[in-house]
């Protein structure tokens, strides 16, 4: 690699991580006004422990993200399998219709969901937020798992069938293990889509109920408190840990015969 491209890459990484580093460092600064020099302290983490609203919102976010991950990954994987392995009426149209939901601005989808959920009586609340997140996550799962499925074709499944494996045995012992890394990647995607989601959560949360992004937004509007830095620091560490774990896992599972 030339020195120039090395320098460029370094600059990009600095640009990417600088705000995050500042936020994490400030989480440990005693001053609420970002004063320098830094006085190292964990006072904001202690404050966070007593901040019911922020903790409840975090718990809501985590629960919704987990539920969303399970539901969207299962449904999306099933859809991806159907698209990849079966020929049925409207298959191409249905696959095409999955894509726009990724490109349509969330603000518009959020408004549309709010209107629809009112009409049909679903209303607002954690259940509505979960529903919205699942709808939003499925296309990502279908695409990620579909890419993995496209990589190995039906030959392995036919081989399993020719060896006497029932369709269920074929799925459990061949198809799923082979696409597992794709499914794990898709699950992480689904988790991130839900955990990051602000607009739809904001639209679908009734007063008194909120998720972490909605609560952080409210906190910033009301007057910034460094507890937000503290909780953000925790989330950053956890999500980076997850990402690294996944990177290891994916390389491990991603090895394939030539």
């Amino acid at each position: 690699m030339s020195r120039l491209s090395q320098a460029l890459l370094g600059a990009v990484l600095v640009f990417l991580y600088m705000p995050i580093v500042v936020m994490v460092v400030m989480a440990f600064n005693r001053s609420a006004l970002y004063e320098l020099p830094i006085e190292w302290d964990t006072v904001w983490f202690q404050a966070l422990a007593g901040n019911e609203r922020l903790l409840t919102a975090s718990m809501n976010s985590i629960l919704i993200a987990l539920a969303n991950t399970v539901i969207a990954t299962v449904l999306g994987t099933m859809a991806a399998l159907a698209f990849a392995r079966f020929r049925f009426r409207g298959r191409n149209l249905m696959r095409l219709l999955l894509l726009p939901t990724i490109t349509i601005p969330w603000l518009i989808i959020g408004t549309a969901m709010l209107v629809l959920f009112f009409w049909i009586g679903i209303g607002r609340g954690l259940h509505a937020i979960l529903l919205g997140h699942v709808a939003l996550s499925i296309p990502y799962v279908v695409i990620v798992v579909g890419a993995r499925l496209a990589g190995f074709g039906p030959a392995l499944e036919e081989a399993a069938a020719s060896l006497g494996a029932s369709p269920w045995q074929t799925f459990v012992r061949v198809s799923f293990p082979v696409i597992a890394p794709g499914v794990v990647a898709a699950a992480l995607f689904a988790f991130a889509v839900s955990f990051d989601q602000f607009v739809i959560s904001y639209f679908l949360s009734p007063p008194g109920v909120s998720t972490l992004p909605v609560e952080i937004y409210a906190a910033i509007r009301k007057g910034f408190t460094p507890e937000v830095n503290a909780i953000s620091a925790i989330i950053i560490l956890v999500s980076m840990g997850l990402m690294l774990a996944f990177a290891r896992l994916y390389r491990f599972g991603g090895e394939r015969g030539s």
Partner: protein
Amino acid sequence: MSRVEARAVRKAYGAVKALDGVSLTFEDGSFSALLGPSGSGKTTLLRAFAGFVTLDSGTIAIDGKLVNDVPPHRRDLGMVFQNYALFPHMTVAENIAFGLSVRGAARAAIAERVEAMLRLVRLEGFGARKPRQLSGGQQQRVALARALVTRPRVLLLDEPLGALDRRLRQEMQIELKQIQREVGITAIFVTHDQEEALTLADRVAVINEGRLVQVGMPGEVYERPATRFVAGFLGDANLFEGRVAGGRVAVGGGAIATEDALPTEGAPAILAVRPEKVVLAADAAGLDADLVNRLEGRIVQAVYAGSAITYIVEAGDRRLIVFEQNRAAAPLGPDTAVIAAFAPRHAVLVQP
């Protein structure tokens, strides 16, 4: 060991007739080739035996029992796929054990059988490896062991040696034939390689455009091609198209004698002559008396291929292809005047 029968099998994909009424029987313990160009329907037929293709009409029977509605996993057939389709997440031993373990066989019995299969395909000690750590030839052997481990009734092979290089392919041909004999299984393989079909199979079925064109022992199919297509697809052929005249076939520049029964006087007829049956000589004096079909010409091109030489001979407005063993002190050079001669028994009447 089993007998496989296809009766009037048809399958269309849209307007394309992949199988257009094929009837064919594979005898117990035979090793047969389905030979044809790509798109001829040979692979569709093999996949129909395996149960991966649902027929439009016709029947497939194994040991006299209709299997049209039996799903692939209940047909009890072994199959070797074109790119082996080894399970990448399993070791070699796990791959081979798969067919036994889905049937719920006991651990000890599986281990013993897997060892025996590894010995059969000469891969002892490779059980713990992953497929990607093996060479193409080794992967091929694992695929074969995996397909044979359950003692299936029939072994199906889809272009089994297509992904291997030439030398390895020749080695594997010998090995495959040996294993087939050893196990005594009815085997059917698909290939587009005529040499492979002739070397490996004891019966060759030539398929073109969804139809069975000719079936027979390799020698029969090669020496007595039934149609112009078979003559040209299985090896090379010099074709003489003309009309029947006085017990011979009149072509531009003469009449060709044959021992085959010809159609009525004046009817069109095509004779095929294999290139190695044609003898080249400088003058008529050196030619055997039975080589009564003689064409005067000159050499246009001599292609040197080590053990043999391919000559292109121009005789009138016709070009002949001639194979000769590399026995002469020096190959004949271009522009040499020659007489190309062949016996009537080597001029085979073929259908258009």
